[in-house]
C-alpha cells in the first residue's frame, strides 16, 4: 500500500493520478476463515482492523450485504463525544475518544476528526440538574466536561437565541471541548484500507442468510455467495442484528427504528461547534463544506425502511428555528434515514452470545458512530480472547437477566 501524504499526492499528480492503488481489494470469499465478521460498517471494519493489528488474527472476512460503510455509518450526523453518565459508559467512550484523537495518523487516512466542541443544552431545571450531575461524573472519570451558563453558551455559540421569552429558554449547557465531528465515510474507508492491507478480506455484495450451528457452536455462515466456514463469527450489523441473530435462534432486547437526518444547502459558516438539545430534539453542526447537518427524531415504530416521516422533520425544524432564528431562510437539500438498533437502557450490547463462538455487537441505537474505534477495539479483544475486555464487560446481554442495566437515557437522549 502506498502511504498517503502531501508528497505522495504531489508525486502522483505528476503522473495524472494514474497510479494510485486500490484502497481495498474485492476478493472472492475463501472457504474458511478464523473469524467472519458480519457487517462492514465502521464497527465491523474497525473490529477486523484491530483483530489483525492488536491480536495478529488476519485470516478474517468482513461480509457486507451492500457496500461497505453504507449502513448507519454512512448516514449519521457524526457527532463524537465521550461525556456519558455512568462509569461503564464514560470509560468506554473515553477510550474511543482517545483512539479518535490519533485515528487519522494511525490509519494514514484523514478522517477529519474535528474537535470543535459539543454542547448539550439544558432547557429546564431537571435538565440543569442532570447536566451538572453528568459534568461531575465525567470530571471524576477524567473526561473533559464543563457546565456553561446561558451567557457562556451564547459566547461559545453566538447564533443561539438565549432569550428568556423563548419557548425553550436556554438555561445552560454542558460542553465537551474535545467532542466534535468526523468524516463518517473516511472512517469506514480508512479502516477498510487498513484491514485490507493486513490481509483481511472485505467482501461486499454478499448477504449472510443463515448460520451454521452444530451442538450450540457456530461453524460458519450461509451467504448469498455460498457457505463460508469460520471458527468464530461476530455480528456487527446494527439495525439488522435481530434478523441475523434470529438465524442463530437468538432473541435480543433490540428494536430497530427509522432515524432521520438532513442537510441544508451549503452556506458560509455560521456554526462552528456542535449543538444538541435532547429536550427539543435538535442536534446540528455545520460541515466543512457549509451544509448544516441536522439529526431529526426517531420514528416511534419498528422500521427497516431507511426512510422516515416528514412531520418529524417539520416539528424538529420548528424547534430549531426557536434556537437558531437565522436558519429560516436556508433550505433543506436532502433528507434520509437510517435504521437504528435501540436497547431498552440506551446502552449497547458487546459480548458473547448463548451460541459458542458467536459474538454480538449491537444496540448502538442513535449514538454508535462515536464508539466506532472503541467498539472495534473492545470487540476484537472479546473475540480474540473469548472474553470481554474490562471496558465492555458491563455491556453483556446478561445484564437484562440480572437487571444490571446501564441506563443512559439521560445522557443518550433522543439521538446524536
Amino acid at each position, binding site marked *: 500500500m502506498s502511504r498517503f501524504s502531501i508528497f505522495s499526492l504531489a508525486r502522483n499528480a505528476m503522473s495524472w493520478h494514474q497510479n494510485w492503488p486500490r*484502497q481495498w*481489494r474485492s476478493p472472492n470469499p475463501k472457504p474458511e476463515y478464523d473469524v467472519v465478521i458480519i457487517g462492514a460498517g465502521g464497527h465491523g471494519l474497525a473490529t477486523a482492523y484491530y483483530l489483525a493489528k492488536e491480536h495478529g488474527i488476519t485470516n478474517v472476512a468482513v461480509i457486507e450485504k451492500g457496500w461497505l460503510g453504507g449502513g448507519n455509518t*454512512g448516514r449519521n450526523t457524526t457527532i463524537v463525544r465521550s461525556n456519558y453518565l455512568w462509569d461503564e459508559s464514560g470509560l468506554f467512550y473515553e477510550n474511543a475518544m482517545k483512539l479518535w484523537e490519533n485515528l487519522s495518523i494511525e490509519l494514514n487516512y484523514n478522517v477529519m476528526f474535528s474537535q470543535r466542541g459539543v454542547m448539550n443544552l439544558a432547557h429546564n431545571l431537571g435538565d440543569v440538574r442532570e447536566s451538572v450531575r453528568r459534568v*461531575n461524573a465525567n*470530571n471524576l472519570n*477524567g473526561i473533559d466536561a464543563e457546565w456553561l451558563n446561558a451567557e457562556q453558551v451564547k459566547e461559545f455559540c453566538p447564533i443561539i437565541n438565549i432569550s428568556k421569552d423563548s419557548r425553550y429558554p436556554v438555561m445552560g449547557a454542558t460542553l465537551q471541548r474535545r467532542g466534535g465531528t468526523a468524516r463518517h465515510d473516511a472512517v469506514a474507508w480508512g479502516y477498510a484500507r487498513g484491514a485490507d492491507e493486513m490481509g483481511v478480506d472485505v467482501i461486499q455484495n454478499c448477504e449472510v442468510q443463515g448460520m451454521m450451528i452444530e451442538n450450540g457452536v457456530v461453524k460458519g455462515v450461509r451467504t448469498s455467495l455460498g457457505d463460508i466456514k469460520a471458527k468464530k463469527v461476530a455480528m456487527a450489523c446494527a439495525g439488522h442484528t435481530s434478523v441475523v441473530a434470529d438465524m442463530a435462534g437468538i432473541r435480543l432486547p433490540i428494536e430497530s427504528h427509522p432515524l432521520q437526518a438532513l442537510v441544508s444547502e*451549503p452556506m458560509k459558516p455560521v456554526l462552528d461547534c456542535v449543538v444538541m438539545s435532547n429536550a427539543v430534539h435538535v442536534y446540528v453542526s455545520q460541515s466543512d463544506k457549509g451544509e448544516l447537518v441536522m439529526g431529526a427524531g426517531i420514528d416511534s415504530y419498528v422500521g427497516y425502511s431507511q426512510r422516515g416521516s416528514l412531520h418529524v422533520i417539520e416539528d424538529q425544524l420548528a424547534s430549531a428555528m*426557536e434556537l437558531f*432564528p437565522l436558519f429560516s431562510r436556508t433550505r*433543506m437539500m436532502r433528507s434520509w434515514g437510517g435504521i437504528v438498533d435501540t436497547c431498552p437502557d440506551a446502552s449497547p450490547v458487546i459480548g458473547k452470545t448463548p451460541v459458542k463462538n458467536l459474538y454480538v455487537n449491537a444496540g448502538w441505537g442513535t449514538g454508535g458512530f462515536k464508539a466506532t474505534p472503541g467498539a472495534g477495539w473492545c470487540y476484537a479483544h472479546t473475540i480474540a480472547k473469548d472474553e470481554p475486555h474490562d471496558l465492555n464487560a458491563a455491556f453483556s446481554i446478561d445484564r437484562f437477566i440480572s437487571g444490571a442495566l446501564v441506563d443512559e437515557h439521560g445522557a443518550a437522549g433522543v439521538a446524536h
Partner: protein
Amino acid sequence: MTEQFRTTQGSRVDRSKAINFTFNGKNYKGVEGDTLASALIANGVHLVGRSFKTHRPRGILTCGSEEPNAIIQLETGPRSEPNLRATQVELYEGLSAKSVNCWPSVNFDIAAVNAIAGRIFVAGFYYKTFMKPSSLWMTVWEPAIRRMAGLGVLPREKDPDTYDHMNEFCEVMVVGSGPAGLSAALAAGRTGARVVLCDEHPEFGGTLLNTKEIIDGKPAQEWVKTAVAELEAMDNVRLLKRANAFGYYDHNYITVHERRTDHFGPGAKPELTRQRIWHFRSKQVVLATGSHERPLVFADNDRPGTMLAAAGQTYANRYGALPGRRGVVFTNNDSAYSVAIDLVDAGMDIPTVVDLREVVDGDLPNTARKKGIEVITGSGIVATLGRKRVKGVEIATVSSDGSQVTGTKRKIDCDTILSSGGWSPAVHLFSQSIGKLRYDEEKVCFVPNVSSQNERTVGACKGSFDLQSALDEGAAAGAAAAKDTGFGKGKAPASPKALVVEEKPIKAYWVVPTDHPVGQGKRKHFVDFQHDVTAADIMLAAREGMHSVEHMKRYTTTGMATDQGKLSNVNGLAILSSQLEKAIPKVGTTTFRPPYTPVNFGALAGRGINGDLADPVRRTPMYSWHLENGATFEPVGQWQRAWYYPKAGEDMHAAVTRETAALRDGVGILDASTLGKIDIQGKDAAKFLNLIYTNAWLKLPVGMCRYGFMLKEDGMVFDDGVTSRLGENHFHMTTTTGGAAGVLDWLEEYLQTEWPDLEVYCTSVTEEWSTLSIGGPKARQLLEELAPDMDFSNENFPFMAWRDGVVAGVDARVFRISFTGDLSYEINVRNWHGLHLWKKCMELGEKYDITPYGTETMHVLRAEKGFVIVGQETDGTQTPQDLGMDWIVAKKKGDFVGRRSFIREDTARADRKQLVGLMTDNPKEVLTEGAQLTYERVNPTPAPMVGHVTSSYWSPNLDHSIAMALVKDGHNRMGQWIYAHDRGKVTKVKIVSPVFYDPKGERRDG
C-alpha cells in the same frame, strides 16, 4: 444597459413592461415574464458564478430547478436569501442579486488560484493529506478548508416573513403540468373527483411553453391555454403553480412547497404567508414530471456560454432572449435539431450541429440541413476556447467507442455551445415512493418499472418522449386513476392530435475524447458542475476501488450539490460503469431522496416558526393571577408552573426563605392544578389498583386516600401519587404533572390488553379540577372560614381523608394530604372556579399573611421531610426499596406490575444505591444538585463514584443546608462521612436520615 440579446417578436414575455434590476451592483433592464436568468441572458451576461472548489467561472446552464451553476444571493438585509437559482427567480421591479462564493467579485475571484493547484485537488485528496502533525489539522488546515466552505450567506436577523401549512385530501394528485400532466388532470377532473395539479413553474404547460409544437393543427400553447381554462373552471380541481412536489412518502403522502409571494418581491404582500407546505393524502397519484436534458461530457464543457440545448431553445422561444450570437449545437440525439432550428428562426447564427452519431438522417436533422445548418456527423467537440466566455470550439471526428479523437481538429468560432446528451426521466418522486427503475438501452435512460404505491407515471417521466404519447398516456392515466377512486368509468377522453416528427435513436456516448487521455492534461471533462467533479475524478475513484456507485458518489461528491445530481448522476454512473466494464443497470443509480428541489427551513417549520405556536404552553386557571403577582415560572413539560413569587428586591433565595417560613409558621397556598387526575370506576377497580400499584388497595375505606408507587415491569419506579376511594367501586387517582398522559395510556394498555375481563373504566379528569394546596399551622382556620359548613377537626377529617363540601361558595372536594409535612388541604374545585377560590383564599387569608408559594418552596418543604420527587430522586433505575420505602411494597397481596423484577440478581443486591440524607459540616454550605459522591476524599482517576446528590436546598426552617442523595450501600452507612465533588470542589458530608424535619410527624395535624 439595453437588452442586446432580446428578440423582437414571439415568446411569452411582455416586452412593453420593463423591469429594472441589479446584478453584482450593475443596473440592467428586463421585462415582465423574465426570470433573473433570462433577463441576464437578454443582457448578454453569462458569467454568473464561481464553482465550489476551484472557483472556475460558471455560466447559466439550464432554465429550471436543475440549475447547478447560476446560484445567487438575492437581496440584502433580513430578507436576503442565499443559494437561489437564477433560473427560478422571477424578475420583479428593483430586484437585486449577486453571485455567491466569490471574492472580491465574480470577474476577479482570488480563490480561483485553487484551479492552479488543481492538479493536486483530485477526488478525495483531503483524505490523503493534512494529517501530520495532528496539531495543524485543527489550527491550520481545517480552518482553511472551512473558509472556503459554502455558497451564499445567511442573513443574521430573524426572518420577517411567515409560512404556513395546509392539509388536503384528494382523489387524484397530478404532479407536473406538461402535456401529460394537463391531460391527466383534465381526464380526472372531468369525472368530478377531487384533483390537484401542481407544477414548480410559474405557468402551466411544461415543455410546451418552451417549444413550438403543434397540437390539433395549432400552436400547442393554445391547447395549453384552453386546457388550463377548463381546469380553472372546475370546482373540484385545485391548481398550484410555483409548487414543488418535493416528497412522495408512504401511504400516498405527497408534500408540496408553494412559493406564494416571492415573485412580487420581498415583503410585497405582508398579509400572505410567503411560502406554504401542502400535505396531500391522495388516493391515486399521476406523476407527469417530465425529464431533464443531460449535458454531454466533453473537454472544457463548463465555460460560460455552454448551455443545455433545450435551455437555449427555451430562452429564445419562451423568454425572447438569445443565448448568444453564434452557437454550435452538440448532440447525440435528434431533439437538439429542433433547438438549432428554433434558434435560427429566432435570429441566432447556428452554423453547425456536431453529432456524435455516424449516421444522421432523421426528419429534424434534414430540416436543419435545409435551413443551411451544417451537420457534422461522427464528431465531437474536443476542446473549447475562451475563458470567461466561450470563444470557439475545436471539433474532430471521434471513435465510436469514445476512446479517442480520430480526425484532425477544426476550429469554429462561436460564443455559445448548446449540448444535448439525451434525456433522463424525472423519476425522483417515483423512486422516493420506492418504485423500481429499469434501464432502457434504446432510450439510454432509467425509466419507471414497478410502482409500489397507488401511482402511475406518464409522458417523459415514463420515458415516452414524444408529445402524442404524453397526451395519450396522461389522459388514460387520469381517467383510470379517477376510476380507481370511484369516479368516472375509466375511459380516457380522446386526446388531441399532436404533429409528430419521428425521431431517430439516440446513441449513448458518455465521455467525448480530447487530444489527451481523459484526466491527463489540462482539459477537464466536468460531470458535476457545482462540485467540480470531472470524469477523471470518477475514473480515479474507480481505480482506487470505489466500485459501488454510492462510494463513487461520496468519494467524488458527484450529485451531492444543490441540484442533487439532476444533471450529473446518470453521466457519473455511466462513466463508472464503463470504467468498471459493467453494464449500466448493474451499477445502478444512487438513492433518490426528498426534497426534489430544496425547501426552506422556515416553510417546513410553518407557523411553528413562532415557538409558542410550535409547542403549546399549558396554563392553569390561576395563571393570570400568578403573572399579575410577579411570579417567575418554571417549565414542567408543556406546563408553566409558578416557581416563586419574588417581592420587590428579592432574589430567589430571599423569596423562597420567606415562602417556606410562611408555610411553616402561618399559611401558604400553592397552585397544584397540573397534577394528573384519573377517574377510575367499576366493580374491579380496587383489584386493578392492586395490580398496578405496589401497595394494597382492597381494604382502603371509602373516604380515605393512600399514596402509591407504580413500577414498570423492570421493577423501577415510574410514577407516584395519591389515590382516593370515592366509593366502593370508585377511585380518584392523581399522577405527577409530567406523567399524566403516559400513566393513562399505560393503565388502558393493561386494562385493554392484559386484563380485558376486569370491569374498570378510566377517564382523565385532570382539567375538570383546579387544585389549590393550602398548608401550614393556620390552614385549618382559613379552611373553616372558607367552608363554614364543613368540619375540619382531626377527628372528623383526619389525615389522608377526603370530604365533599362547599368552599368559598362553590362545590369542592377537599383532600387532607400533605407534601410538606405540615397540616395541609388540597382543595379541588371545577376548573372555572379555580381563580375565584384562589382570590378568595388570598382575601380571607390576608389576616394570616397567607403567602403564595411556588414549586421551589414546595421542593424545599418536601425535602425537609424526605419526600421523593419522581424524576428527581429517581431516574428510572430505582426500586421502592432503594428509596427506603419497603413499606409501600405489599408482601402478601400477590402479583403486581414489576414485582418479579425485585428478585433478579442485581436488583436484589443489598448494596444498591439507596436514598439517604446528607448534612454538610458547614451549615451554610449548600451542595450542588448533581454533585457526585465518593467514600474517600482523595481519589485516583477514574474515581470510584458511589452516588450523587439528587436534591439540595437551604432549609430556612432548620437554618441548615439539607440534601438528599443516592448512595451505594447508603442505608448501612448512616453517620459515615463521605465526599461530594462539584467541579473541583470537595465537600465533606455526613450520611443521615433523609427526614430532616419533624421526624415524628407532629406537625401533620396542625
